[in-house]
């Protein structure tokens, strides 16, 4: 699908490719994900890369546990999800704090900008609060040109200092979801 016809949230964009390159550059080899249109480009790049193992999850907390298991074995994993999925992770994040596992989460925001679906709004509003309450450091990306650097720095913080870090991609950055 070309950029000319794709909805903004599934489109290719240079910053999405740069984020993938940043993940590769920091040594991530496992991509655990719950599909999301805003992550579609990143997921397709990961699936096409022979050095990356992708794991499609049935629910986001699976990815918290799987990323912890990967670190037990010496591999760096990243967890991709939409903001609505953050709520599904709450109790599983206890594992991360109790064991001081590194955790790198890339979260595409819904429900905060030009949102068509009111069912996305409550969890969107709670996303940062929930993450902070469970000990996850939160950094937002608002501008395309900063995305790769923020992801790279978040990965260094997560894996270098065994911290839990969530990078939230603003809905305005992802683009409007097209309902037609």
């Amino acid at each position, binding site marked *: 699908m070309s950029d000319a016809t794709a909805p903004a949230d599934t489109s290719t964009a240079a910053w999405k490719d740069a984020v993938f390159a940043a993940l590769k550059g920091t040594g991530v080899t496992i991509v655990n994900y719950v599909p999301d249109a805003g992550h579609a480009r990143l997921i397709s790049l990961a699936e096409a890369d022979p050095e990356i193992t992708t*794991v499609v999850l*049935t629910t986001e907390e*699976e*990815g918290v546990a799987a990323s912890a*298991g990967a670190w037990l074995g010496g591999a760096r994993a990243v967890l991709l999800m939409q903001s609505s999925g953050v709520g599904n992770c709450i*109790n599983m994040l206890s*594992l991360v704090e109790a*064991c*001081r*596992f590194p955790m790198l989460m890339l979260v595409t925001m819904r429900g905060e900008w030009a949102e068509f679906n009111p069912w996305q709004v409550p969890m969107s509003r709670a996303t940062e609060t929930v993450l902070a309450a469970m000990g996850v450091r939160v950094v937002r990306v608002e501008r395309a040109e900063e995305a790769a650097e923020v992801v790279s720095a978040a990965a260094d913080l997560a894996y270098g200092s065994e911290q839990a870090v969530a990078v939230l991609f603003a809905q305005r950055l992802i683009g409007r979801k097209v309902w037609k």
Partner: protein
Amino acid sequence: MSATVMQRRPAVRALLADRPADLLVIAGLGTPAYDLFDAGDHDGNFYLWGAMGGAAMVGLGLALARPANPVLVLTGDGEALMGLGALATIGARKPSNLSIAVLDNGHFGETGMQRSHTSLGTDLTAVAAACGFAWTATAATVEEARALAPRLADRSGPALIRLVVGAEPLPKTLPPRDGAYLKTRFRANLGLAPA
């Protein structure tokens, strides 16, 4: 309950008989963790004290990170039921080095011995098979459990082994519960440095 029902601790010891040196074991919270510790502590053991529903996924992450090591997840029916979607995720990924052994007493033993879904109709081996697991097995005797032990290391998975055990209470044998210690110990056993 009949005296012929397999007890959980002999079942775990039988499954871990002649434990391969490179076998890595993740234990789900509660009694399975106590059972694994009772069978013999090992630097290749990682005991969960929480993360209910996540044991199989910790095992998947580990199995993908360590494709040369056989990985066993030892958990209970309640923990496995909470993470039922993980069986679909594992079936989709098909790691040949991952086995999941479920100590199935049909009850939520830690919380007052309420009947679990495996007493009420769910067959976890059928679920795993339907999710695309390479093989499943049920062991109802210590001999059957021991016969499955060599298969943990034969890279024929993903596998789900149902160990049908009694629901009798047992004394708790508690492994360490400092998660950071357990993590660092486990990684050091694999030659991985602390952060």
